[in-house]
């Protein structure tokens, strides 16, 4: 097992009532990078993220996160990762601070600086306002705050910039880059907005119909496709690069 790999899946397969949603998926994410995860709607991005965070159990194959097996060492992995999967869920009648307090208590970590994190995501003046009154963008910010407050080693973010305003997108982008640079976190981000991934990702992975077909460094894509990630992505989707090996 390679020590620098934070996430490694081998021949990962997941079936839902007989239908293979994830097929023989091999994924490797190195330590300290931002991994952009691309794929069409329904390709299996969220399913992969759920498998990585133990919300789903693999039908076949192996998943290792931080060098630990996802099935047998589930709890120890969960305390080291931060997740934002699908629409974030909160305790609606409680304030942002109380939600984070409960989160820290469940995580078994009491030392999180709630005020600091809230100001980082731009929610410092919400006070005692219950989460039920928050807008979509504010919820997304709070969800990001919750994912990072317990200082995880790996962040799994599914569409983290959904519902954010342009200012918010830039703030979050800077925050993500800072987390990787200063705290040595590894980020796994999926997004529909290709330019966003282009801005921050070091490596990108492309999933088509439940199989990761490409894993390539951003530098290489930029060298091959000076016009940007979009052309690269479209080429894979339409099958023009099918016979070429980019690994």
């Amino acid at each position, binding site marked *: 097992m390679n020590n620098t790999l934070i996430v490694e899946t081998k021949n990962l397969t997941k079936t*839902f009532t007989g239908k293979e949603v994830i097929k023989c998926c091999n994924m490797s994410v190195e330590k300290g990078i931002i991994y952009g995860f691309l794929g069409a709607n329904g390709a299996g991005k969220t399913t992969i993220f*759920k498998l990585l*965070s*133990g*919300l*789903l*159990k693999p039908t076949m194959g192996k998943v290792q996160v931080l060098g630990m097996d996802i099935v047998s060492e589930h*709890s*120890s*992995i*969960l*305390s080291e990762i931060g*997740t934002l*999967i*699908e*629409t974030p*869920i*909160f*305790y609606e*009648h*409680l304030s942002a601070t*109380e939600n984070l307090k*409960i989160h820290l*208590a*469940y*995580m*078994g970590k009491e030392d999180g600086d709630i005020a600091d994190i809230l100001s980082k995501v731009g929610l410092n003046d919400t006070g005692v306002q219950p989460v039920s009154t928050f807008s979509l963008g504010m919820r997304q910010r709070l969800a990001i705050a919750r994912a990072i407050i317990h200082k995880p080693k790996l962040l799994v973010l599914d569409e983290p910039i959904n519902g954010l305003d342009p200012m918010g997108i830039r703030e979050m982008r800077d925050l993500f880059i800072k987390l990787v640079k200063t705290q040595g976190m590894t980020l796994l981000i999926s997004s529909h907005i290709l330019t966003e991934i282009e801005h921050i990702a070091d490596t990108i992975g492309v999933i088509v119909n439940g199989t990761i077909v490409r894993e390539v460094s951003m530098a290489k894509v930029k060298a091959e496709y000076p016009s940007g990630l979009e052309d690269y992505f479209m080429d894979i989707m339409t099958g023009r690069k099918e016979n070429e090996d980019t690994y």
Partner: protein
Amino acid sequence: MKTLIRLELKKNKINTYIIASLIIAITMLGFLFLFAYAPMLEPNDKDMAIFSGYNNLIPLFGVFNMAVFCVMSAVMYSKFVIEDYSGKRPILLFSYPVSRKKIILSKLSVVCVFTIISMVISNIIVFLTFGITEKFIHLVGRDFTFSIMLQVIESTLVMSFIAASIGVVAVGIGFIKKSVPTTIVSSVLIASLMCNIVVNVTLSRITMYVVAVIMILIGIIFSIFLIKKVNAMEVE
């Protein structure tokens, strides 16, 4: 486990249920007076005999009270268990590094203990008030003595355990479909069934205990079923 229980109390507004229990206690007090007064309405009616004397009044009122608290515990279970494990909500609970078994157990025990405590306290308050007013207005022929109070406490304790068990069974049934209405309807059905059984066995102390123990065992079986279900759950 202690911290988990504290967190459950923090997450859910427990005050709502305390207020509900108080309202139940006040309503129940009204019913108790009504039951005690009923034989006086038509002294010659033989059917009214089921209300006369403490020996009839206590079990009758007890099962009625039990049914009410069964429904309240089913409502609490719906809020604590069914809602937290349906739809996308389990994503939140399952992303904590705490065993799923412990989380569901802490939820079950919070509701179970709350049901028992609130039922016992509410019953003691109701009967104490009734006992005091009996000193001035004589509705039941005999005096309200200390031994009657002990009898009340004993039957209330036993019935509160039955009520808590019925709640667990109801939530177990409701959990299959993750449905709040199923939970509440099954609690009403089981409670009305149990009322008929319990009211007939309260006259003999041993059978009352046997029924209670059987209900508690069934409750434990359903808890194990729930834990297994939660452990195997996947969030699609």
